[in-house]
């Protein structure tokens, strides 16, 4: 790799961001080298500055940021000090960018292929007809189903994974020297992620394109990158060859990142068979309007135990939660609470029935009212359900804050926007606890969080379960989480339960074929994992899996 020509050289890069009417330095002097045809992985938690650095390699900053110091050289061109007109001739033509959410980055009003041909046309690389033919060729290489025609659809007519690949094709349209991938698979299911990862890796190799791959997922970066750079709050922690880095991380911080996936609480004894389950879902079917989404779903949740419901997006796992809470009355079947049926509609349930089943949401940002103080967010359910007022209410709220390991005097009067993502999620947990429930639904509670923060939340949930004997229904698509905290697992696909049972059974073969697909799709830290998996499955198979899911 070292004998290859240097493409990008960044030296002493400093970037400031504006917040609360002040400029704060968010990137503190980063050096970065990228050779032709090399893939560099940038990893770090949110706030590490990885996206900001990625964009700066294009000579670009987001609104509210500015580059204050350092040099950015791209193939001998000083990207920091060239005119906007000259930079425009380079961006898109020689440097391309793939964003996290393809759905938000495509213009919904134009066909995919028309957006694809824009770049080559503007930069006079190809004519429209040539570019169209080339697009179809790229779609074929990226193993999109029906490459001849898929480009003539609108963005909403293809799946998320396909759209992400179409976006990669678009980035390739001018055959750039470098592509910056900003978390391109974070929003995708594990099974879809594999297809996108394989496609990106192949095409970057085929055209010898250099790439900067930004992600917070270590296992993913292990598959994609030749070299890895670890970032923490705008500083470089360490940089090394992928294999060296995985085998022998030098710094403590890197080691702690590597260790996150090992959280494993001691197993709990199985529930006595005669015990009445806290929540029992019995033969529930449901539909949105005329469209049926759930078919005959049954499972039990016992006191003090965690049932993980796993499946891809669209598998109906969140819909089950809506049926249990009564937001979506089932068309058939019933929900039993300690053996007595709950009214299907939440409006018909008594205050005590509502109290017993609480919910923690995926996006803590939208789950907490930004204009209401913590004291009221937690105090209201306390008062509403237990009738405590005044000083007693305050004491209870402070006790709740202590329970979730947050200092009452510091947080009692804060507003949610003043908290970090992990703190917000803790408040979400405390709000559920304020009702003193028997049962909590956790809907993807860790998927929006960094790994270290997510681990803290999982530990907290586990401790609370042991202290308070709570029953959890844990909705997730992340099998690493399931492996660490679940007691029982329910696998769902297309609104049906595919397989269900205690965790040890679920993680030992033989599996149902779908469970097997899910399990084998979870990226592992081994840099050869993707290569081996593709070999094992046969590359053609993956293309088939993609078309089967449409």
């Amino acid at each position, binding site marked *: 790799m070292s004998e290859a020509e240097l493409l990008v050289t960044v030296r002493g890069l400093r970037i400031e961001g504006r*917040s609360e*009417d002040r400029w704060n330095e968010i990137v503190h002097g980063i050096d970065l080298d990228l050779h032709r045809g090399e893939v560099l992985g940038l990893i770090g938690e949110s706030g590490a500055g990885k996206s900001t650095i990625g964009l700066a390699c294009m000579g670009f900053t987001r609104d509210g940021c500015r580059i204050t110091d350092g040099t950015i050289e791209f193939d001998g061109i000083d990207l920091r000090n060239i005119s906007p007109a000259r930079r425009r001739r380079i961006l898109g033509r020689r440097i391309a960018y793939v964003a996290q959410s393809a759905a938000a980055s495509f213009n919904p009003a134009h066909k995919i292929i028309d957006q694809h041909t824009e770049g080559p046309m503007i930069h006079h690389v190809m004519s429209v007809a040539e570019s169209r033919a080339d697009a179809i060729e790229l779609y074929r290489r990226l193993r999109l189903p029906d490459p001849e025609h898929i480009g003539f659809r609108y963005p909403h007519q293809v799946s998320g994974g396909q759209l992400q690949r179409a976006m990669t094709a678009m980035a390739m349209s001018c055959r750039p020297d470098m592509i910056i991938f900003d978390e391109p698979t974070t929003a995708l299911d594990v099974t879809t992620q594999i297809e996108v990862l394989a496609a990106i890796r192949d095409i970057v190799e085929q055209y010898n394109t250099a790439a900067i791959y930004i992600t917070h997922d270590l296992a993913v970066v292990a598959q994609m990158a030749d070299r890895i750079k670890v970032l923490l709050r705008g500083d470089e922690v360490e940089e090394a060859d992928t294999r060296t880095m995985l085998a022998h991380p030098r710094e403590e911080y890197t080691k702690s990142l590597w260790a996150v996936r090992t959280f494993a609480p001691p197993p709990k004894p199985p529930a006595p068979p005669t015990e009445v389950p806290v929540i029992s879902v019995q033969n529930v079917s449901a539909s949105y309007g005329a469209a049926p989404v759930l078919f005959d779903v049954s499972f039990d949740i016992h006191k003090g135990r965690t049932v993980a419901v796993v499946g891809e997006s669209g598998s109906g796992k969140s819909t089950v939660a809506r049926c249990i*809470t*009564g*937001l979506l009355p089932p068309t058939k079947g019933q929900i039993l609470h300690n053996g007595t049926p709950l009214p299907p509609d*939440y409006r018909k*349930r008594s*205050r005590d029935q*509502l109290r017993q089943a609480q*919910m923690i*949401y995926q*996006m803590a940002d*939208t*789950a*907490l*009212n*930004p*204009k*209401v103080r913590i004291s*009221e967010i937690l105090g*209201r*359910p306390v008062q*509403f*359900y237990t009738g405590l007022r005044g000083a007693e209410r305050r004491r209870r709220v402070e006790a709740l804050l202590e329970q979730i390991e947050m200092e009452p005097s510091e947080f009692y009067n804060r507003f949610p*926007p003043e908290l970090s993502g992990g703190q917000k999620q803790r408040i979400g947990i405390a*709000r559920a606890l304020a*009702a003193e429930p028997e049962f909590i639904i956790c809907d993807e509670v860790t998927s929006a969080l960094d790994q270290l923060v997510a681990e803290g939340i999982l530990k907290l949930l586990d401790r609370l379960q042991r202290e308070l004997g709570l029953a959890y229904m844990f909705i997730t698509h992340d099998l690493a989480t399931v492996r660490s905290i679940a007691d029982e697992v329910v696998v769902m696909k297309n609104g049906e339960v595919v397989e269900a049972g205690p965790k040890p059974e679920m993680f030992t073969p033989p599996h149902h074929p779908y469970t097997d697909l899910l399990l084998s799709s979870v990226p592992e830290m081994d840099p050869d994992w993707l290569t081996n998996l593709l070999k094992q499955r046969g590359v053609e198979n993956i293309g088939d899996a993609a078309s089967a899911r449409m």
Partner: protein
Amino acid sequence: MTTLLYIVGILVVAAAASWLFRAALIAVLPRPGKLLFRTMPLVASFGLLMIIIYVSAALFAPVIAPYGEAEVFDKFNALPGDDPRFLLGTDQIGRDLLTRLIYGGRNTIGIAFLTTVLAFLLGAIAGFLAATVGGWLDQLLSRTVDALMAIPQLIFALLLITIFGQSTINMILVIAVLDSTRVFRLSRAVAGNIVVMDYIEAAKLRGEGLGYLIFREILPNATPPLIAEFGMRFCFVFLLIAALSFLGLGIQPPLADWGSMVRDLSQFINYAVFAPLTASLPLMAAGAIALLTVSVNFVVDWMLHRASGLKE
């Protein structure tokens, strides 16, 4: 050239006054207020100063005004500076214009404020209800509002005031109802984006009633756009009242108001060719309307900027 000097002079005086006003506020107020006003831009300070002057003039009209509201003197059609007794001159029947301006502010601002508050109470509550409850209530309210908005506002207001009889109360009610349709549309749209949030779902699942949902969960998040709209609506109501008065259906004599003053004195503009100063008579009332409108919007813009900045 002298005109230009005058304009520059006025701007400098205004800027200096705004700066002094802000400095005074920072010096006088306790800590939270200090922090608030330190970041206030000069135009907002100017707007705030003007609003305070207007409001105190309106409140203390009987003390400040040199004469009674309907007092008639033998000297009519006096131009500013003609007679030392009448600083800004007199109208066609000999009423002191300065007095009329001060009392006019009292009536116009008071009525416009009351009307806007009513319109907001009515429109915002109906809008939030429509967004939160949805279904047939939403349909009923929205279609009623559509029907009301389909008729040109001024003509509709004229029609309704004619039907219910001319009185200040009727005028306030009619304008409030007609204006609440605009507020309804805005608050329904704003609340529509809020009711889909998870925290609303959480409150519903807790078993909270409609009142708590609307006033404790939705309203705090809907205030910034509503405040902006309040500033705009206040000015529109103000202009509508002036328009109605101009047409003779608004505030009735002997009560003074700026709209009727513009109407009554408008023919003086015809003589401006011969004596430019005559044009100042109708323009004084018009200028009072314009200045207040601009001032209110300066302040509202600043509040909005702050509200959106906090969200960051």
